[in-house]
């Protein structure tokens, strides 16, 4: 029994790593589930049970973290950064960013200077916790089982 759990954990971790590696590409849940060798239906549920959030939310937080990095470290436009990190609509990006970080991308940029730290440290340490959850608000929509950004985000 426990061997099965370990094997599933390891495969889900491999899928999570794939999202960290390929966040900038248009990822769909079928492809990521395939990395873990589990069915699409089983994947979101299993991933959430193991890592505490849906794969969709995991990917969003990784994309937002990378956008925060680019906002801090570069002078690329917000629109370019939105596309750089895998969003395909500025509206969805801004809404998701605000929901997770608690301020707009431009305001975030204005308040943060470059952080002189190794990339792996930044990716690990600064992936944002969801602002609405920090504030104690319940019911943040993390149920989506689709990676399609449009329609997946529920404004708080």
């Amino acid at each position: 029994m426990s061997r099965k759990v370990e094997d599933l954990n390891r495969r889900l971790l491999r899928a999570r790593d794939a999202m960290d590696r390929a966040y900038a590409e248009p990822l769909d849940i079928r492809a990521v589930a395939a990395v873990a060798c589990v069915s699409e239906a089983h994947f979101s549920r299993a991933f959430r049970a193991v890592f505490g959030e849906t794969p969709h939310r995991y990917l969003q937080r990784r994309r937002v973290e990378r956008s925060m990095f680019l906002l801090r470290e570069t002078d690329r436009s917000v629109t370019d950064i939105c596309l750089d990190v895998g969003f395909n609509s500025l509206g969805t990006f801004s809404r998701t960013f605000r929901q997770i970080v608690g301020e707009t991308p431009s305001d975030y940029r204005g308040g943060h200077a470059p952080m002189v730290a190794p990339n792996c440290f930044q990716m690990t340490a600064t992936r944002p916790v969801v602002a609405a959850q920090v504030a104690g608000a319940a019911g943040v929509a993390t149920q989506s089982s689709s990676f399609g950004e449009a329609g997946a985000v529920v404004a708080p």
Partner: protein
Amino acid sequence: MITKLNVTSVKVLNQDEALDFYVNKLGLEVGRDIKQGSFRWLTVRVPGDPGIEIFLEEPGPPVHDEATAAQLRELITKGAMGSLVFLADDVRGLYETLKARGVADFTQEPTEHFYGIDMGVRDPFGNAIRILQPAKVAPALQ
């Protein structure tokens, strides 16, 4: 006053598999391999650097009861346990070598930063390993 780090440990699911990965794939060398009953003191180290050994520790008796060992195994495979950072002289070359040796679980391909070139890989159990080739001049990190 403490003068040096001597031994650190990484928890693994299987010591034989760990030995194969850390020595035959990653290129470390065996430090100690001593069996005492069901306990195996198995360490690896960077070749030419005998001062710091990495204990490849398999959860289980006599150190852990079976329930604790099962919890540890779950955490290892979630990638929630320790991690190692090594330095290397040629990360891009090492990346090709590791691929040729069958390593596939890269978390990051060689990437250039202001402080050097680094890459990420997982051991067969889920532990994160990072390998950095420091830039010639990286004043901010020194």
